[in-house]
């Protein structure tokens, strides 16, 4: 049994070994020993893509394998959770995959634990330089930890406000351009004080305090902080102001109404887009992937009133606008998430992994990447990809996509802070905001955000000072 427990002698020794390993890889690449053998090097690739995206991903892999002889990517798909567990076990067992694609904020956590290869180990300095200008600011932030790029994003998740224009016009309401507009939409379509509500003009989702805080001018992270504690800024007064605004909805409608309406956005029932289903909302925050649902509804003539059996009435019209700021707030702001490639430290073929991630993200290969993004309705990580004919065509086919692409290029879209407590931080803030909005009680926005910030500070100190 003693053969199981110790995985490697000592951290420093392990580090040295890894260095030696990567050096040898840099020297020899992972090319086959003899050119004539022409046995392609295998790149084991784990990812989380399912549903409608799976065939597109499978096609990218096929195309990559056909595009060159040196590497062969073997993809294994599994839901994100299983991906995490399998990754931890593979690290413990000493044979991680060669490449991962992930969509949760794990990069800082894992990079801090020294199990990821920085991109600099695979990319040439020239490529790294080029990446710096090539990537959207949000995509760059998404992959960075401690001043180094550890991940290459291959798609961004951008959120904006979907608006049912027909519903707004029926009430002579303008599209929401300010916070006051949003409040008026909510109060006009669903005047507070009723026993039951059939529909809502708008309801803020507590999980999206991460976006609204930034829109209100707040930050969640101070990279320049001199001491660990002050890096965490969840209790920034501007974030508090955002949560106070959100809590106002809960006070007007009551926590149980707010929580019961929220249910439509949960991950699994997210299989249906409630903007379309029964006009439950006039305005709703959601991501670019909902455009697919809108398009499908347009094609089948469903959506809005038509579903309710009145076949003569025209379909509802939908549009998308960025999150509107309050006076003194920030434009085109929000919380951004995305999919990124990471290479585990003991990857047997980091160079092959690097070639594949470049192929998918589109560095050197913008046209193919643009086609994949157009097929999947994904948001590219670079202007260069957006500018390709295939993606330009997608923008013409679905003009609403422009709003999301414009937001993707904004400087004001921020991911979860790249700290080695990112997952914990993300969850603590969501739970704090939910406590204010969903529970009866006296918890004030300021108190819950302060509490969450303190918990995260404590954890961050533990994590940063444990060595």
């Amino acid at each position: 049994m003693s053969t199981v427990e110790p995985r490697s002698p000592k951290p420093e020794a392990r580090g040295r070994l890894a260095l030696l390993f990567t050096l040898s890889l840099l020297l020899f690449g992972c090319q086959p020993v003899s050119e004539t053998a022409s046995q392609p090097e295998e790149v084991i690739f784990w990812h989380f893509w399912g549903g409608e995206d799976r065939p597109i991903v499978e096609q990218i892999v096929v195309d990559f394998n056909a595009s060159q002889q040196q590497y062969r990517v073997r993809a294994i798909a599994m839901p994100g959770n299983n991906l995490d567990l399998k990754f931890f076990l593979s690290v413990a067992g000493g044979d991680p995959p060669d490449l991962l694609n992930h969509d949760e904020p794990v990069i800082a956590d894992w990079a801090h634990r020294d199990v990821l290869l920085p991109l600099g180990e695979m990319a040439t300095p020239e490529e790294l330089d080029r990446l710096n200008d090539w990537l959207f600011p949000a995509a760059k932030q998404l992959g960075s930890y401690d001043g180094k790029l550890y991940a290459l994003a291959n798609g961004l998740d951008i959120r904006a406000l979907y608006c049912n224009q027909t519903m707004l016009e029926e009430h002579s309401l303008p599209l929401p351009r300010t916070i006051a507009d949003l409040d008026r939409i909510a109060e006009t379509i669903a005047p507070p004080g009723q026993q039951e509500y059939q529909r809502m003009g708008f309801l803020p989702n507590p999980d999206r305090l991460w976006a609204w805080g930034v829109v209100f001018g707040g930050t969640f992270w101070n990279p320049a902080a001199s001491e660990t504690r002050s890096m965490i800024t969840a209790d920034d007064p501007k974030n508090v102001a955002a949560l106070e605004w959100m809590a106002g909805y809960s006070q007007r409608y009551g926590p149980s109404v707010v929580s019961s309406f929220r249910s439509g956005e949960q991950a699994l029932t997210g299989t249906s887009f409630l903007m379309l289903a029964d006009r439950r909302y006039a305005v709703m925050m959601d991501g670019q992937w909902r455009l697919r649902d809108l398009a499908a509804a347009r094609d089948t003539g469903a959506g809005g009133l038509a579903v309710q059996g009145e076949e003569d009435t025209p379909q509802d019209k939908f549009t998308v606008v960025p999150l509107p700021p309050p006076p003194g707030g920030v434009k085109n702001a929000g919380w951004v998430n995305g999919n990124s490639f990471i290479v585990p430290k003991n990857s047997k073929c980091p160079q092959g992994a690097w070639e594949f991630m470049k192929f998918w993200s589109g560095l050197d290969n913008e046209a193919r990447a643009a086609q994949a993004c157009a097929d999947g309705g994904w948001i590219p990580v670079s202007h260069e990809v957006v500018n390709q004919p295939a993606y330009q065509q997608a923008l013409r086919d679905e003009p609403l996509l422009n709003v999301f692409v414009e937001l993707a290029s904004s400087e004001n879209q921020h991911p979860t802070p790249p700290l080695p407590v990112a997952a914990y931080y993300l969850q603590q803030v969501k739970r704090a905001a939910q406590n204010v909005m969903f529970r009866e009680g006296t918890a004030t926005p300021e108190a819950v955000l302060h509490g969450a910030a303190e918990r995260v500070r404590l954890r961050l100190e533990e994590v940063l000072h444990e060595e």
Partner: protein
Amino acid sequence: MKSNAMNDNHETSSNIAGKVLVVLATALFAIPLVWMVLTSLKTPEQIANAPYSWWPSPLRWENYREAVSAMPFLRYLVNTLVLCLGSVAGTLFSCTLAAYAFARLRFPGRNLLFAVLIATMLLPWQVTMAPRFLLIRELGLYDSLGALIAPTFLGNAFYIFLLRQFFLTIPQDMIEAARMDGASELGILWRIALPLARPALATVALLQFVAAWNNYGGPLLYLNDPQHFPLAYGLERFVSSHSTQTHLLMAAAVLFTLPIVAAFFLAQRLFLRGIATTGLKG
């Protein structure tokens, strides 16, 4: 005469009440199943636009064809069957022996061992998963169906406990009589306990079959090569955080559930035979 008639009346009325109740209860259990089947025939547009409507319109039978052709169905099915049958064999072998010992033998340390058996179920998998994985790896079972089948030959606390409860109901005098006749314990288990416990064995076999059929997390942890994956894995491909294909998921779920109906019918005949034998001997 009179009281007898009343008694009959009483019986029939309570019989009818029982029958009405069971039909109602079954209906309640069946409603979500019906919903599942109906959803499996809807178009994705209908699910998206009218998620609360009952009837599929139009009917989309292609969902089934698409669901099956989206994965190497036969290969996954074969893997699943190997997994199910192997683990049922392992479970029946190891658990029957241990359960009989716990229920019917008095040996020193029995109660302590039984307490340990129960205790092994109390620690959540989240904290035991990693070391267990490394052990299985060390045993050279990683990335083979053996990683999932071999452990079943080493017993499972849940089934041992369950079978013990069944063995406890076998009348002690039958066992004592056999012992007096000089039968070995294995002989008693084989000739007396097992025939009497046939419904229980059928139950354990069915439960383990279903558990292996549905096991998804285990194969994903212990297998690497998609060639080894079971059907349950194929099902997950329709799920994604932003683009779940509910129509295909439900079609696959219906197909996935159907074979169990067959297994259940089979096991059920064993319950009935169990009643008959017990009735004759009891």
